[in-house]
């Protein structure tokens, strides 16, 4: 059941992205930016954590969770250290994703040659 919910919810978020591209005629970069900002907003109003409890990877794998993680890092650090925590904590949770993407991306550029 857990797997089915992750599949359906994750799929629906991708459909939202696809509709933004096809119907609203946004470029992929605009779509991704919009989704990230909506992740921040959804977490700001306290919805995103409930979505994670409900759908698991269905909402942690799409890019919206990047916004959620940025906001979460900022807030949890700010609770301990005050306002400065917003800037020191912002990359705390997303660090794994960004570091992995940079490191693997660079290694890929070393190994692979461009196609086409």
């Amino acid at each position, binding site marked *: 059941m857990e797997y089915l919910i992750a599949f359906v919810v994750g799929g629906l978020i*991708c459909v939202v992205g696809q509709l933004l591209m096809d119907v609203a005629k946004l470029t992929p970069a605009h779509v991704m930016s919009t989704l990230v900002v909506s992740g921040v907003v959804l977490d700001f109003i306290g919805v995103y954590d409930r979505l994670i409890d409900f759908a698991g990877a269905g909402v942690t794998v799409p890019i919206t969770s990047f916004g959620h993680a940025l906001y979460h890092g900022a807030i949890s650090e700010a609770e301990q250290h005050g306002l400065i925590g917003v800037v020191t904590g912002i990359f705390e949770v997303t660090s794994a994703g960004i570091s992995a993407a940079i490191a693997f991306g660079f290694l890929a550029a070393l190994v692979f040659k461009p196609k086409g």
Partner: protein
Amino acid sequence: MGTKTKTSKSMPMTKQLYQQQAAKYQPKRNVLLNSLRAFWVGGAICLLGQILQNIYITFFGFTEKTASNPTVATLIFLAVLLTGLGVYDNIGQYAGAGSAVPVTGFANSIASAAIEHRSEGFVLGVGGNMFKLAGSVIVFGVVAAFVAGVLKTLWKMFT
């Protein structure tokens, strides 16, 4: 030699007219089919994420909260590998947002920019262009999180 041939009956090409003409040659978007493809591919990537997460929880002692880090890292690794092999672009052609919206699409945009600009050198090419596409996601995410975080923190201070 080299005389410019002027088109005798030059139509005044207004912007409106141009768009009318260009619209004929634009591929029709099949919204329903595209959405269906995005749905099942995007769903499948999230399903894979859920499977990985459960593996990390069951076999490697991660908790529900901490397991998303190795899960995301694994997905990113897979996406970069598939990008390098040229497979991810084919998936992207088919799935549209289905492969772009999950975190794998973020990794794909970084890896493909890095590989593509390799010929310009490692510093200016790979280093400088890696975040060409992913940069906007990071910038807007951070700005939004910063504003929201400051608002929330100030709100807590004064209430």
